[in-house]
């Protein structure tokens, strides 16, 4: 087996069209266990679409998504969850009328596939500071708490690959710092993370390397420090992107 086939996630020349618009136009990257990859780029560059395709919300229109060496493109979400892929949502979508505890219980009961240890839900809620809210309806939580619950729901399935879509937006500086530490700790335990975020400070603190996207294409891959010196990246972020 070549090294490339052993990657946890391989995204190869993935294309996603919406009508005539190519939201993803041949994107390729890979991710290994314990690695944190940042996905940055202007609005509409295809970051969230990329997460949506990997997590099974949309089937890709071209290319391949490989997880643990097997193609997963177009597989339904619940099967991906059981295989070990999970995600958070840019606008969190908890089960509002159910309690916080029930929200994570469902995910642990159904999304937790064979071959992975079930997480201790009590400890999980405590680690995310949701333990005091366990019996409250998710609809009673504020938006930052709902985002954290969304993360808890994803983590309750004990994923091997976690896709994080703008988790940091709306958090205060102290919460941001704690969230960054949490994500690093997950990676230290061997989880692979793909992080979409606009806050560069957060990206800098969390990621090992970044991919910069523009108009559905990857324009840079490397560390964030090098990205900020890349002329193409500077052009895209500071204007003239559509010129």
């Amino acid at each position, binding site marked *: 087996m070549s090294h490339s086939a052993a990657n946890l996630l391989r995204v190869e020349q993935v294309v996603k069209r919406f009508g005539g618009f190519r939201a993803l136009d041949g994107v390729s990257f890979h991710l290994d266990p314990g690695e944190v990859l940042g996905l940055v780029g202007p609005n509409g560059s295809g970051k969230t679409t990329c997460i949506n395709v990997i*997590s*099974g*919300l949309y089937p890709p229109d071209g290319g391949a998504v490989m997880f643990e060496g097997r193609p997963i493109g177009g597989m*339904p*979400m*619940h099967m991906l*969850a*059981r295989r070990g892929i*999970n*995600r958070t*949502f840019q606008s969190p*979508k*908890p*089960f*509002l*009328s*159910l309690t916080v505890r*029930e929200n994570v*219980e*469902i*995910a642990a*009961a*159904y*999304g*937790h*596939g064979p071959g992975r240890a079930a997480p201790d839900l009590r400890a999980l809620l405590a680690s995310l500071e949701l333990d005091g809210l366990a019996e409250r309806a998710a609809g009673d939580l504020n938006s930052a708490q709902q985002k954290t619950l*969304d993360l808890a*729901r*994803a983590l*309750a*399935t004990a994923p091997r690959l976690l896709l994080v879509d703008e988790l940091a937006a709306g958090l205060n500086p102290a919460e941001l710092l704690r969230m960054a530490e949490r994500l690093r700790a997950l990676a230290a335990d061997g989880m692979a993370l793909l992080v979409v975020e606009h806050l560069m400070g957060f990206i800098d603190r969390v990621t090992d390397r970044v991919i910069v996207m523009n108009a559905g294409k990857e324009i840079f891959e490397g560390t964030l420090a090098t990205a900020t010196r890349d002329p193409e990246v500077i052009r895209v972020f500071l204007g003239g992107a559509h010129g």
Partner: protein
Amino acid sequence: MKLRVGDAVLAAAVVALMAVLPSVYSNELLLFNFVMFLTLSQGLNILYGFTGYLPFGYVGFFGAGAYGFAIAVMNYGAGPLPAMLIAAAAAVILALVLMPLLRLSGAYFAIASLAAAQAVYQVISNPALEQVTKGPYGVSLTGVFAPRLSYYVAVGIMAGTFALVVWLRNSRFGLALQAIREDTVSAGMAGVSVVRFRTVAWLLSALVAGLVGGVFAWHISVFYPDTAFDVGISIFATVFTLFGGATTLTGPLLGVAILYGVYNAIGITVPQYFQLIYGTLIVGLVMFLPNGLVSLLTRRGIRVP
């Protein structure tokens, strides 16, 4: 599964009450109708309360059950109990045929299910099918008429339906259905097979209506397509469920007790006052208690069975 005791106690109490009432109260048809709506509103609760799909055409499954029973008895000489199985099968088969409706949601689903029920009604009542269904002329099943036995079978079906709702309220499966109701995408990401789970709820809900339709045919033994496919049955089951509060066991029970009680007290003698009271109650409910009567308690954090 952590069973909330209140659920089981309430279900058992209502079943026991309906089982002993015929020995102290002589209007058995009225009692039968109560049992019928107590069961139908819980059957609708399985679908609406747990998955969020509101089937205005719920009566279609009821009618399919009634005619499944009638056809088995009339055309194949089946006894009432085998005919009940045919009633159940007819409703479940109809639900399987109508599964594409689940691709719709909200009002579109509600209207499409109503249209589907009407389509079945048109087929059953078609004079060209007189040999099979007796068309618009109605069926007579006096050969199997057994009001007392059929009443107790209806109570049995009610008990089974209550048990199903209690199970849904206390099981992971029921929780997963509620997750689907809240958000299909998050439910999928929580590992819930959305399509498969809501299909199960759909079929269970249809099964309940089919069994009730079958036992209805058995109990009254003479009826017409307009009786078995009366949209009023859908409306009653829906309003009773929403009035009391879906997803609970108590809500639909309260809805039937209050609204069907009012209907039987004055709905036939002074229908204009009934319509007035009924309309006022429903408008008031929609405006002030959209989650039903039980929300008076649940929004204060009180758990309702």
